[in-house]
């Protein structure tokens, strides 16, 4: 049963991240996703101090605000003339530092372990259950992630055409009257929410892995956005299951193994993809030369 909850949590994380990750890498904002997943830390810490407990909904909302704040600061610095990579680097490190300081200084009030924030501890999620109306309805992490995934599916599903256009051709989108900035913030808000919801299970740093790697592998496998999202979700799920098995066999960090397996799948896609894989391109070139 424990295995079921762990794998379910992991699949929820990887699915949510995979959908968002596809849009992120198409918009070349992979590292902004990295920045957001680090920068939500002070939001989590403040929400903790405020509510005094892990009261999930407020923490989710409060920390999501920090993600949006990060994007706002990055945009402001860029508008002021600073190059994009420097703006990202300055903003997220400053916010992460604030978060670490808040957690270190308030250790007795915050039930957060810094290591847990970085790596998560997915093996423990099953014991932290939610009680609604006196009934035990399952691990809280599963609920939070489930709601997050639902929100993502609804938002992306409703505005699929807009997100798609903004990802491929923002200029055309703006010319069509689509509020590109709004959708940018919407995407980043979803990323922020996913980081917060996932940090307990896989930690903030490895959320980035689930955001980028399955989506990148899917990017090499197809030219259609719909299929890319589907492949990314499948690869993410495969990484979760494979990673759990690997961690079980090696007695190592579950989250780390999941990202490692995702990396292996990415390398396989890089080499063997029928359309863009290196090995097959080489073979095709040799045959064409004949």
């Amino acid at each position, binding site marked *: 049963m424990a295995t079921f909850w762990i794998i379910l949590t992991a699949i929820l994380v990887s699915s949510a991240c995979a959908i968002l990750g596809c849009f992120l890498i198409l918009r070349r904002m*992979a590292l902004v996703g990295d920045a957001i997943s680090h920068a939500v830390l002070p939001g989590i810490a403040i929400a903790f101090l405020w509510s005094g407990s892990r009261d999930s909904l407020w923490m989710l909302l409060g920390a999501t605000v920090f993600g949006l704040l990060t994007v706002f600061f990055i945009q402001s610095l860029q508008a002021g003339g600073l190059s994009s990579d420097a703006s990202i*680097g*300055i903003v997220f*490190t400053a916010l992460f*530092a604030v978060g670490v300081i808040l957690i270190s200084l308030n250790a007795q009030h915050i039930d957060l372990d810094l290591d847990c924030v970085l790596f998560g501890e997915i093996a423990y999620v099953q014991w932290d259950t939610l009680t609604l109306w006196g009934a035990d309805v399952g691990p809280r992490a599963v609920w939070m992630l489930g709601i997050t995934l639902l929100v993502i599916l609804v938002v992306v599903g409703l505005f699929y055409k807009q997100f798609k256009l903004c990802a491929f051709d923002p200029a055309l989108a703006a010319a069509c009257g689509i509020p590109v900035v709004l959708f940018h913030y919407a995407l980043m808000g979803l990323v922020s929410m996913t980081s917060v919801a996932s940090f307990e299970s896989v930690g903030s740093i490895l959320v980035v892995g689930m955001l*980028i790697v399955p989506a990148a592998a899917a990017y090499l496998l197809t030219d259609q956005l719909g299929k890319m999202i589907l492949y990314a979700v499948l690869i993410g799920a495969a990484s979760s299951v494979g990673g759990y098995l690997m961690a079980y066999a090696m007695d*190592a960090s579950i989250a780390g*193994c999941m*990202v*490692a397996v995702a990396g292996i799948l990415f390398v396989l896609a890089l080499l063997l993809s029928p359309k863009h894989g290196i090995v097959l391109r080489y073979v095709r070139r040799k045959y064409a030369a004949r």
Partner: protein
Amino acid sequence: MWNWVISILSDPNTRWILLGCLLLGFSSGIIGSFTFLRRQSLMGDTLAHAALPGICIAFMLTETKSIALFLFGALIAGIVATFGISWITRFSRIKQDTAMGIVLTVFFGIGVVMLTRIQHSASGSQSGLDKYLFGQAASMVLTDVYVMGGVCLVLLVACLIWFKEFKLVSFDPGFARGMGLPVGVLEQLILLLTVIAVVAGIQAVGVVLVAALLVTPAAAARCWTDSLALMVLLAGLFGALSGAAGTIFSTFVPNLPTGPVTVLAATVLFAISTLFAPRRGLLARKLRSIQAKSTYMREEQATLQLSSTQPQTQKRGEM
């Protein structure tokens, strides 16, 4: 006030740590200027994350906790990471930022796997490897300061010797290539020096925050000057100040790790620079635009006044 300063400097341990962090901040600021100009600021973050498996492998192979060995392992991992990124970008349609993200997280994930394996093993608790995540400058000893000093010296000497070449390669690599300079080699050299600075910085501020040591002082220095030499010097100075501030504050407040305070000090310096630097600062620009507007308004009014008296005389003339 002086008693306070003396009390800090009287503890030899604090002196060493302070010196180490000063040197580290200084050298990071210097090499950071070049990566900042080349728009490769996040490379430092990627290299820092990628260094973790290198450190773990170094520990697993030798079973000893030696800073020099860790540095060597991290260096190798950093170089492998750099090759990985350029390989992915060159041989597939993946863009550079995504490639950096992939290498960053996959290497870090592998590093975390190794870290947990080490921690579960017999000799794990002695490794002190988890210090590398958030930095623990307070655990620096004299040998660490020697290593830090050595690193700083290497970086300084390299930047001095090849200053003109780095300058040209950073601003106009096409022209440099046309002049016959080995641009590829020089770029790899800058990257190597960055890896060295990153690897040394991980000890003091930890994996996640070491990018800040490279970027923030350089960005702050950029606001004050257009001369590269001055910018590099200022960046080093800002870095050193941040390192010192971080060490001092975390000595006085218990439970406070040095890394975040150093980064916040650097960010505060950056904020001050962005706002108050002459010519490039926000305040200066605002004042200039207000001045320009008021000059424009005065000229407009003068022209209007002039043209309001003109038509009367013209009409009389016409009639």
